[in-house]
């Protein structure tokens, strides 16, 4: 059993035009930088991308937008990107906006083998249009379908060669959920350790969910809102 790929290019090489992808990360935090860069190099097109955000103009999914590789974005917040806006207004790009918690839970549902979930988020709003509602205990919920993806691209902090993943701080966000939802899950990691080096009690995603591993180097990890304390604050 070998899950380790030589590099991100090898790991994403069989992603075809029209594929549905999940991409981990919140903002630019915890995004699979190297897999995105490799995807840009492949030139694959007509992708449906499920990702909480759509990157910025020159980083993250923004690079894929620049290459006109994305046909549809399924996200909760997409506001940081001029090229995104241009493609959306020109009709090149389709966007489905859904509440962040709904997005997270619909991804989780796939990894947990649940075909659909109920959530109150969006009841009475545009999000509810055309969706089935149901009352439980006097409260109204929307029925929301699980998200599935041909490939999930996630970024982890550490992994062992069995595919066990550990995430760091808030770079965890959507990554474990998407890792568990992918038909094929590609995890790029900062550090590959020996089996047994990770605390078996502290694995975020067991290797059964992870099909391919790429060790990434030279992470840029760009910060969107560098906010610091001032001495008199």
């Amino acid at each position, binding site marked *: 059993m070998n899950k380790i790929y030589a590099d991100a290019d090898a790991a994403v090489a069989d992603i075809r035009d029209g594929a549905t992808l999940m991409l981990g990360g919140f903002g630019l*935090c915890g995004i699979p930088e190297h897999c995105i860069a490799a995807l840009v190099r492949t030139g694959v097109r007509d992708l449906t991308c499920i990702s909480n955000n759509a990157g910025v103009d020159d980083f993250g999914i923004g690079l894929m937008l620049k290459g006109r590789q994305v046909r549809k974005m399924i996200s909760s917040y997409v506001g940081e990107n001029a090229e995104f806006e241009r493609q959306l207004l020109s009709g090149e790009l389709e966007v489905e906006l859904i509440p962040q*918690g*709904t997005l997270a839970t619909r991804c989780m549902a796939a990894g947990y083998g649940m075909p659909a979930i109920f959530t109150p988020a969006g009841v009475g709003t545009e999000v509810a249009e055309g969706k089935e509602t149901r009352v439980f205990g006097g409260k109204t919920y929307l029925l929301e379908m699980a998200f599935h993806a041909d490939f999930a691209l996630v970024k982890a902090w550490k992994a062992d060669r069995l595919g066990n993943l550990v995430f760091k701080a808030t770079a965890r966000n959507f990554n474990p959920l998407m890792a568990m939802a992918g038909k094929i899950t590609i995890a790029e990691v900062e550090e590959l350790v020996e089996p047994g080096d990770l605390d078996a009690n502290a694995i975020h995603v067991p290797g059964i969910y992870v099909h391919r591993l790429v060790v990434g180097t030279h992470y840029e990890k*760009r910060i969107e809102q560098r906010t610091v304390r001032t001495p008199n604050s």
Partner: protein
Amino acid sequence: MLDKNGIARTIARELKDGYYVNLGIGIPTLVANFIPEGMEVQLQSENGLLGMGPFPWEGSEDPDLINAGKQTITTLPGSAFFDSAMSFGMIRSGKVDLTVLGAMEVAENGDIANWKIPGKMVKGMGGAMDLVASARHIVVAMQHVNKAGESKLLPRCTLPITGLACVRKVVTELGVFGFDERGFVLLERAPGVSADYIRERTLGHLSSIGQEPEIQWA
């Protein structure tokens, strides 16, 4: 009239020891600066953190550690990270005691609109719809009128709704507002602001005896 810090300080009076609190972007974030000494309050950031601390000192920013506003932050001892499903799980199951967020409009019945302006580029609702659909105690912090001078406390929302009948309290630069079956209820006036002045700037139905107390801070 309250300034932004005054609004935040007023909302901070809602805090209780042991509370778990989610603070939105903008004025709500400032509430964290007014947690009373000796009171333990845990801040939840919906991207996956309980126990959020202040911004980092310059040079110690960690790109893997941000809040829901994508700002670099720190953690306090006893913090915990989790994935986004668990984060919204605790929100959805009502474990967050207090949610403070901004709004474009609030209606008499507690409806809130804060995510979309028709004709303008839509950025998305982020976690707002989840928060307002589930939080047990939702306080809105906002300016009383918009840039055109129009009341943001309305009979009903004109902008696309974020959530239905969910707001429990509104704090603006003019006062503190609750709700009854008829609409807004003036609970406290900002220092130096009369009930009449507030009524003139409030389009939604406003109940007021005219002698509401001025806001006081401990």
